[in-house]
């Protein structure tokens, strides 16, 4: 009744063919390094600093070409645009602006102005004080927009008594909100209401809704890179110590070689597919390391057990036996993990898609490296069986044989 993905008597020659796997890994390894350094990693703003805005076009699909022209005209340096998940959603990335933080804030305001039918950033900040009408001034921004367009947008709001007028001489449009939207029970309630009214007014004037706005300063970016590197290095070190403590140094070295292999191949995967490398990617790398070591330890555990059990069996045969005995578990766990992670890729949404893709890759590569690298590598270190025999005696709580 139960399905067996892997037959009980399986005996694949993993260890005998180890040189094939070593060669394959070496090729992948070199390719990954080449890709990482030649192609380069597509660093997100987390690491290189800059501005990221995710916007959803209100009227159907986003016109990337038109947006590119409009934003390109702002002189904000390199602007990259791409649709994000849905055809209505656009991800806008702008390189960090020279100048201080004010320059970054100003750049964000100017971008938001492009998507508003009323450009307010160049005008004086709106004034709002409790009990007084609130006034928003700005220039008509786009071809074909008239006062009527503004009035139409404002009419859709749930605010009543809002008026829009245009000064013939300066061409400035002025929107006035009646005082009741800026008044409330007490100072903070009043300010709250003002903010709400203004946010909804600004929203109505915009042709897009902003789903995300991020700005990362260069200094923070550098620190995030450093802490990412530290996290990976210390995790490897911690894992190495643990495996050393629980097994023998040979196992811990083999595990670290396999893990380094996984991490570099993951970097190569990101570089080759030009996936965005950001904070979440570092998390993915560490998760992959965690998954891979989990797999490796299970096989190591069996190797250790068999070393005690079969005192005369040649090492290559013993290792191959260990891999095959745990193969069913390895495959089953990989399948369940892949099922879950694939659900994440397909349904989890665009924001974590790259992260989920990395996990899929990591499960595959981690499983492979545990079986085909970590264990065969052990052969090249001088494993001493007597250390394990002793441990077993202690573990069983008996006095060592005399």
């Amino acid at each position: 009744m139960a399905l067996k993905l892997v037959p009980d008597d399986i005996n694949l020659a993993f260890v005998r063919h180890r040189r094939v796997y070593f060669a394959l890994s070496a090729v992948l390894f070199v390719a990954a390094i080449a890709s990482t350094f030649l192609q380069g990693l597509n660093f997100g703003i987390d690491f290189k600093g800059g501005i990221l805005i995710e916007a959803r076009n209100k009227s159907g699909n986003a016109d990337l070409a038109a947006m590119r022209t409009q934003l390109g005209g702002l002189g904000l340096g390199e602007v990259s645009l791409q649709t994000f998940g849905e055809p209505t959603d656009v991800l806008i990335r702008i390189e960090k602006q020279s100048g201080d933080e004010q320059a970054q804030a100003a750049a964000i305001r100017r971008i938001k102005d492009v998507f508003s039918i009323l450009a307010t950033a160049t005008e004086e900040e709106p004034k709002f004080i409790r009990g007084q009408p609130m006034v928003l001034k700005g220039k008509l921004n786009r071809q074909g927009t008239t006062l009527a367009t503004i009035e139409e947008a404002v009419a859709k709001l749930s605010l009543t008594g809002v008026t829009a007028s245009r000064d013939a001489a300066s061409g400035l449009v002025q929107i006035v909100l009646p005082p009741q939207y800026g008044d409330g029970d007490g100072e903070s309630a009043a300010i709250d209401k003002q903010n709400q009214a203004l946010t909804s007014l600004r929203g109505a004037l915009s042709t897009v809704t902003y789903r995300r706005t991020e700005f990362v300063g260069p200094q923070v970016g550098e620190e995030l890179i450093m802490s990412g590197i530290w996290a990976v290095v210390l995790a490897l070190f911690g894992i190495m110590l643990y495996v050393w403590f629980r097994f023998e140094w040979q196992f811990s070295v083999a595990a670290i070689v396999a893990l380094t292999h996984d991490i570099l191949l993951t970097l190569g995967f990101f570089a080759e597919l030009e996936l965005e490398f950001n904070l979440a990617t570092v998390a993915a790398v560490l998760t992959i390391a965690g998954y891979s070591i989990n797999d490796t330890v299970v096989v190591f555990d069996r190797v250790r057990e068999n070393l005690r059990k079969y005192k005369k069996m040649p090492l290559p045969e013993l290792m191959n036996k260990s891999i095959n005995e745990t193969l069913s578990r390895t495959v089953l766990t990989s399948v369940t993990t892949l099922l879950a992670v694939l659900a994440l890729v397909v349904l989890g949404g665009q924001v974590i898609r790259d992260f989920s893709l990395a996990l899929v890759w990591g499960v595959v590569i981690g499983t492979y490296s545990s079986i085909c690298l970590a264990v065969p590598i052990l052969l090249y270190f001088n494993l001493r069986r007597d250390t394990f025999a002793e441990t077993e005696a202690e573990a069983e709580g008996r006095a060592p044989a005399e």
Partner: protein
Amino acid sequence: MVHFPRWQIVLIILACVLGLGFATPNLLSDKQVASIPSFLPHKKINLGLDLQGGAHLLLQVDVDYVFREYIASIADSVRGELREGRIRFAGLRVESRTVRFRVRNTADIEKTRERLRSGVGSATTGSLLGGGSREVEIESGGDGVFRVTLTEAAIRSRQDQAIEQSIEVVRRRVDELGTLEPIIQRQGDDRILLQVPGLEDPERLKRILGKTAKMTFHLVDQSEVARKGMRAPPGAMLLPDDTDENQFYLIKRRVEVGGEDLVDAQPTLQDGLPVVSFRFNSRGARRFGNTTRRNVGKPFAIVLDGKVISAPVIREPILGGAGIISGGFTNQTAGDLALLLRAGALPAPLSPLEERTVGASLGTDSIRKGEYASVIGLVLVIVFMGIAYGRFGIMANVALTANMILLLGALSLLQATLTLPGIAGIVLTIGMAVDANVLIFERIREEVRSGRTPISAIDAGYRRAITTIVDSNLTTFIAALMLFFFGSGPIKGFAVTLSIGLATSMFSAIMITRLIVSLWLRRKRPAALPI
């Protein structure tokens, strides 16, 4: 391994019931949650800003500014003490964190040393135990050159003070902005993390935080006519007008009254023009009264962040401790100034290093997609386990479901923050959680093959698999731990769900599945295992 003492069964069931209890509020609406009596679990999982929407700002406190001010005040004290002691000196200047000067007459060296030692040298950094360390080190050479240097302890203590004070001021300013519920934390040596759930447009917030709002009252130096670019006479400084860049004032350095003595400030109208009315505490009122009484007819300058807001002439002594600032305000600027004065001055300028704002719509989408992915992932794994292990797969699935409930319960109980990567961590846990069961079941299969009876096979399977499970989970846990320590914000959330998931999945595989298997064994006493 197959036998369970009664207390263990009770504990396992208790853990599951508690998990269910703590997880339940997440399924209810806010209104229903509000009606839960307080002795029952009534907390939902705490959603991160990326899921509930809001603004995240990382602010840098300009501590160098604090140190510059600090060393400048030390320099003032040194100058004062030398003058009081009638010691002639030259070349007094500030070098980084040191005040340096030369005593003209080498005979004065000992006297200077004594005077400084009992003056600035005796000050200690504040400590609750009274045993604070000294603020400055005094060094002197035979050539009459003195160096007064801030100690490391003084610098550290002043830095801590500045950050604490900044956090307080930020909190007050954000509170003034309405009914937001900000989270404000110190981060590292000189940073403040400000998170405001629900705030989608942080423009005004940033503007309000961008001002130091250091207000001081000074007398005006009338010995010369102020002009742009002139050299200010000693004891005075040349400051620009707040609104007119080309107008300058010569202001005496001495602070008559400081903004720290203000207790209230409000925007009002005077003769139809917006002004800010203010009130001092008793100390401020006394000093303000004294200054205005002695200087009737002279101009009195109000300086904010290095700019002169106005310099009205004192018509009569102001003894009540209340006054009005007028200075060509608009309604808006008067309102903002009053707000800033009420909230107090920042000890140093703040600048945003990092800003992340997530709209509520994206957050809601992320939650919905995360839920889909979790549920579909769970269903896929459950179906697969059922196919792969039959009856035992169903037992593992019961444990997996219990694991999810425990995980949600633990997240609600600990009030850990759930982020979007955190949801990914949950989905990953779903996939990896069955691993422990797979390990055990595979082991049992092997034991069955080697000819053991069902009970003995299950017993041996559990016993042998447990060390493997612990080893493999602990190594994964090391990676999660590093993520927690080095990750920021959303990534921390991922580490949290992953770690809790590891713990609950070990518990559910080793305890819950084992209990189910053991109960089944006892009831059916099977001759062969369907595995």
